[in-house]
């Protein structure tokens, strides 16, 4: 069979296009199922957390449990969750116009509990605030990722694809809540996954599992029978930094205005 130049080009192009389409189709076949946990459908959940500041006693069991469950490095600056102690001094009538600056501390992320303040403030208001990834519905961290290595999964959890993270740290800077860090062992980003390996198997998160006062409660907003609906209805809740419109899903009860 002989081909002139035009026929060769025309047929060649046709087969090239077929190859492109075929490899495209093959990649979809190859990708497999979106979930491995049996009986779990990513489209049927919408995870959130209810955090009751008034119940938190600052024992730090959640921080400890998170480190053990998720194999997080021991140093406090590598934390998926941590507890902050806020100490807000009473109004100073000698200088009433001055802003009241809260003292915030978190020794070892709160993992070993909180010893009394080194310099106690007379008449101060003090409380504990557990912090973790807010699993924003419009996450700033997801928006800045240049390679699609962090994403909001269809069940409302912000996850990291460790095999595709290039460790560029854009997301670490973008998170307004300081919830991300670079794992020194892999040089990829790490963050709270809302214990995704647990919640997809019907367990609660490690921090909720060990919380002795139920100050933290995992909830599935797509499940009408979940107690979180009743809690959200009967409490005046707030999210952190609502002005940023991140769609945060960590709902805090009893959150003081000083908390950032």
């Amino acid at each position, binding site marked *: 069979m002989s081909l002139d130049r035009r026929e060769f080009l025309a047929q060649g192009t046709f087969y090239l296009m077929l190859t492109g389409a075929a490899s495209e189709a093959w990649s979809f076949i190859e990708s497999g199922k979106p979930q491995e946990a049996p009986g779990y459908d990513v489209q049927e959940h919408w995870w959130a957390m209810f955090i009751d500041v008034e119940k938190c006693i600052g024992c730090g069991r959640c921080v400890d449990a998170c480190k053990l469950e998720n194999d997080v490095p021991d140093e406090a600056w590598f934390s998926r969750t941590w507890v902050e102690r806020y100490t807000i001094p009473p109004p100073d009538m000698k200088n009433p116009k001055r802003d009241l600056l809260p003292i915030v501390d978190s020794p070892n992320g709160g993992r070993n509990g909180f010893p009394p303040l080194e310099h106690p403030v007379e008449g101060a208001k*003090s409380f504990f605030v557990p912090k973790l990834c807010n699993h924003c519905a419009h996450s700033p961290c997801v928006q800045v990722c240049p390679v699609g290595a962090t994403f909001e999964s269809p069940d409302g959890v912000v996850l990291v694809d460790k095999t595709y993270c290039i460790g560029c740290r854009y997301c670490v800077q973008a998170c307004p809540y300081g919830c991300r860090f670079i794992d020194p062992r892999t040089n990829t980003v790490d963050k709270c996954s809302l214990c995704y390996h647990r919640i997809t198997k019907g367990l609660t998160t490690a921090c909720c599992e060990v919380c002795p006062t139920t100050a933290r409660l995992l909830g599935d907003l797509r499940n009408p029978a979940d107690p979180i609906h009743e809690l959200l209805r009967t409490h005046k809740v707030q999210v952190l930094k609502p002005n940023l419109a991140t769609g945060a899903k960590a709902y805090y009860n009893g959150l003081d205005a000083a908390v950032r």
Partner: protein
Amino acid sequence: MLRVPKDAEHLLRLALLFAAGIALFLIVRAFLLPAGFGELGHFRTGAIAANQQKPLHFAGRAACDECHSEVVTKLAASKHLQIGCESCHGPAAAHVADPDATKPAKIDAVDLCSRCHAANPSRPRTQPQVDVAAHAEGEVCTECHEAHDPTP
């Protein structure tokens, strides 16, 4: 072969070039994109499964209940009913998998009880608190108090 009017030959050539360009783009794209990318969003679908596959360390109190139901029942009727077993006893998934191979670690009662019950002005008023040194006078908490059914 297509029958093309002679004066349209340059258009056909252009169209073929264009088609070749698109084909090249699709081929390169298919090689560069990881499998499953873009199915559910701007990410690799397989990453969801990867996040589900990490090992468990905390088994949950339902697992404890399978063997230690008498303690779990006792706890459920006590003031400590909200506290998960592994909150004090530590992660026990390995113990659940093979009860004889590993045992939960021994508890340092004074340290652990103090985490929640040492007097601290930052704690909520409703939390029972004691000045540990003055209250215990060197004794271990569990000598007087039963952690699974505490009384003041």
